[in-house]
């Protein structure tokens, strides 16, 4: 039964991520269309039904699977094949350490809605994210194409630069919550400040939040940080990819977006926490409570988590379709001369405040 629960968690989590990523591919088109006074994808139909172009997800995947799988003659066949897999794998694996719900006692079983409860969860996620870079670099290199290589190099340069900011930013959060375990952080965010304000990361670390979101967006390599791809310039590391191999890179993009949203939610928006909802039900600070069964609480909390993630994804897409691309030098300058000092400043200020408050 334990195993069944574990498998269930994995399946649920995996399908949620993949589902969300898939839906994002549709949303990306539809949302951008509506934003830009267009209609958006609506052509794929089954028996005349179009349902707002949702079938494009299916059409896309059919296309991806059936297209010619192409390896450049000069390219490295093995690395060319492996690269997208690496990228996709490490993007997915990071999710394992992220909790999508609390710990519940249901029918005698203790269910912790987290695939892998690590006390260094955050480090694990970052580690996995760093590993993903290899996928992109190898993809670019194995294509034996100057533009692809350039794209791969840019991707690695950009990701490494922003990972530093990201790591430095998160240190503030770790200091506040005093833990590296993501589940612990979530739990800590359930507490109330001054008795009524949920102690979410965004309130405790507002600068950290902005820096983190920015860095996370940069990590996804999407507009405005899409220099590795640079559609109008170099196409990027996947220029020589087609079929499902390209599909994997393509999906990685969206999975990373989800990951960014998930991490942001977990670190700064209370994770699965719903304000004033506790294991037994709602308990409002101004008095009064509302009893709920455990299952309902669980569903509410998982639902809240999902809603937060979804909303963040939505905002990320908004940003992606609103801002223009940075130039490579601007990107680097932003990363190294603004974000990194700011994140270090954030650590210092956090430390000082903690000292004062702690005393």
């Amino acid at each position: 039964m334990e195993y069944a629960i574990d498998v269930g968690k994995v399946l649920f989590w995996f399908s949620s991520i993949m589902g969300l990523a898939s839906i994002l591919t549709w949303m990306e088109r539809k949302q951008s269309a509506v934003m830009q006074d267009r209609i958006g994808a609506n052509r794929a139909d089954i028996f005349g039904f179009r349902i707002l172009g949702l079938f494009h997800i299916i059409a896309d995947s059919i296309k991806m699977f059936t297209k010619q799988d192409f390896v450049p003659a000069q390219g490295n066949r093995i690395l060319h094949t492996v690269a997208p897999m690496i990228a996709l794998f490490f993007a997915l694996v990071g999710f394992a350490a992220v909790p999508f719900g609390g710990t519940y006692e249901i029918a005698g079983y203790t269910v912790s809605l987290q695939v892998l409860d690590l006390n260094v969860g955050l480090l694990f996620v970052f580690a996995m994210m760093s590993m993903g870079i290899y996928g992109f670099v190898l993809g670019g290199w194995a294509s034996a194409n100057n533009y692809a290589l350039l794209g791969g190099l840019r991707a690695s340069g950009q990701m490494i630069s922003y990972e530093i900011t990201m790591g430095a930013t998160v240190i503030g959060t770790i200091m506040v919550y005093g833990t590296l375990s993501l589940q612990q952080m979530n739990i800590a965010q359930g507490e109330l400040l001054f008795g009524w304000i949920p102690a979410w990361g965004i309130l405790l670390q507002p600068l950290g939040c902005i820096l983190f979101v920015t860095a996370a967006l940069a990590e996804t390599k999407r507009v405005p940080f899409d220099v590795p791809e640079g559609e109008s310039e170099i196409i990027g590391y996947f220029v020589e990819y087609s079929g499902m191999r390209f599909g994997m890179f393509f999906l990685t993009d969206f999975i990373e977006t989800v990951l960014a949203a998930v991490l942001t939610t977990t670190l700064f928006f209370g994770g699965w926490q719903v304000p004033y909802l506790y294991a037994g039900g709602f308990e409002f600070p101004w008095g009064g409570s509302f009893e709920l069964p455990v299952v309902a609480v669980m569903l509410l909390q998982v639902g809240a988590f999902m809603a937060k993630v979804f909303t963040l994804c939505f905002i990320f897409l908004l940003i992606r379709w609103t801002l223009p691309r940075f130039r490579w030098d601007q990107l680097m300058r932003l990363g190294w001369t603004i974000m990194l000092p700011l994140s270090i400043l954030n650590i210092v200020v956090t430390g000082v405040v903690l000292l004062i408050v702690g005393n």
Partner: protein
Amino acid sequence: MAIKVEEKQLTLLERLYVLEVVRGIALTTGHFFRNMAVHIARLFGLAKDKKGSTTFQYPEERRPLAPRLRTLHRLTRREDGAPRCVACMMCETVCPAHCISIVAGEHPNPLIEKYPTRFDIDLGLCVFCGYCVEACPEDAIRMDTGVLEFTSFSREGMVYDLNKLLARSETPKPNEESKVKTA
């Protein structure tokens, strides 16, 4: 002549960037929700006079063509139905894409003298610059058919010969322009 660009000095707020980003996002978000509202309203049969998009749903809906738009070529005819073209090869000469090829023949009427025995336009090469129309001294070639779709499964199919070009010799009526036309 160099153009001098006056660079606008950014204010501090603008240089802080975050606020501008927020403003930008607010704008696009505004569009998103307004359009979304219209779409939803129309889904329920409301707000028929409004449109959530400014685009045309292409094959079903077509944009009216500008009168000067250069579209598929046609060759005009004389009153007796013969092509007006006298095979002077001005169009062939001026064509930057070298897509026109004409073979001239001797016309039995010495007043016409010359006529095209072959007149091919390779639309696969054509860049639709319209020079041929400008160069024609006889008003024999025009690009006003309003036809924008001409496709073929072969390169040969993109070569339009005399008969094909003469098939649309009559002047298109203006009100037909927006109607569906396919090659």
